[in-house]
């Protein structure tokens, strides 16, 4: 039983964009299985420390979910011809989803704002819609995309950037 005297900060729902899932998949493939050629694909999770910080943040939420559009976008990433190892990468995606207990929901195109889809694309809009659908669970959106970040802020939704979670905190010089 955790014995921390501090009250546990209740975090209910995390909504994951493609970028953070892709970084988790790649880092595991590089770090655990030694697929060194994938290292150059990593942008934000480059070492155990940043992986740990990201894992701790995700693990602090009771539920994790994403949209079916994000899964399709992961498919585009994996299909890039120069990447190779498609089967292994899909296996990793399956394992990430299973191991983190990821839920997945479909947001139909006709349910999305046409104006927003034109401006941001259906993947980002599906995440905004997910956040609205689950507003009572105080969801947090996790992304690497600063445009989606701004849109969430403008819509009054909680949002975190992976690059801020994984950045090494350094005290300012005196």
């Amino acid at each position, binding site marked *: 039983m955790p014995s921390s005297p501090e009250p546990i900060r209740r*975090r209910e729902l995390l909504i994951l964009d493609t970028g953070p899932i892709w970084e988790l998949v790649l880092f*595991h493939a590089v770090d655990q299985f030694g697929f060194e050629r994938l290292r150059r694909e990593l942008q934000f999770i480059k070492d155990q420390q940043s992986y740990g910080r990201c894992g*701790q943040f995700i693990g*602090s939420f009771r539920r994790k979910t994403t949209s079916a559009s994000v899964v399709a976008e992961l498919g585009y990433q994996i299909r890039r011809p120069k990447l190779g190892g498609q089967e292994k990468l899909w*296996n990793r995606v399956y394992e990430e989803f299973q*191991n*983190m*207990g990821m839920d997945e929901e479909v947001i139909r195109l006709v349910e999305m704002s046409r104006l927003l889809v034109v401006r941001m694309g259906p993947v980002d809009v599906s995440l905004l819609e997910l956040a609205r659908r689950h507003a009572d669970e105080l969801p947090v959106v996790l992304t690497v995309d600063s445009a989606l970040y701004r849109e969430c802020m403008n819509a009054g939704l909680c949002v975190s950037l992976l690059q801020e979670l994984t950045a090494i905190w350094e005290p300012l010089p005196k």
Partner: protein
Amino acid sequence: MGSNIANPPTHSRRVEAWVWAILNPVIDGLRREVGLLSKGNLSWRSYSRNFESIRPIREYIEATQQPNYEDFLADPLNVTFEEAFKKHDEQVIKVESCAARFFDGLMQTEPFRTQVAKSLEEYEAKLSSDDPQYPKLESFRGEIPKMVAEYLINRTEVLPQHYMTYKFWEHYRSQFGKFLKDEFEPYRERTSFQTLAVAVKTLHDDSSKLLADLINHRQMLCSTYDIPAAPVPLDRGNPIDALFS
């Protein structure tokens, strides 16, 4: 033509293809393999009943390069490798089947199933609280014995923190792990565990030797036929390179 096959010319494109498309990915694959085997991480998965990252040699090579692979094996210059690759692949299959036998044994052993159930019950009763770091594992219940067996086969020490079973494994790893010392005799799986351990050691030793032989062979080919060990990127700032890019 016959003499060309037996003795390729300097800067031979054929030899270049062997080095870049065959030897380099196989050397990379074997390096990963030896690294994983040294740590005891077999990357074995119960859903596929094979290793995620330790594969037969042919699978380390891109599908489009299979003709070059066959050409490499057919040439007398590389004569020793067909046998060595075959031996490696047979050993991979052997270790996979030993891991599967050990896994099946654990799954069927009453003491193992009882201990998993007991640990899970204890976890649910004592550890699950409002802290999301201790998630309820109801939806995993049927999978937990398989997961624990997989963790034991792969010598998993710490799971990533965002995995649902992170805290469960953090608390109960040592309880399951202590059976490693007794070679799983309490689960009546000593024989299958020992067979797996011997097969892993043999694969590790064979792969290490094959890796060293392939590195030496690459060095020999590169120096004899005067070719770089990997493609050299063109300098686009150089007008002559730019013409060919």
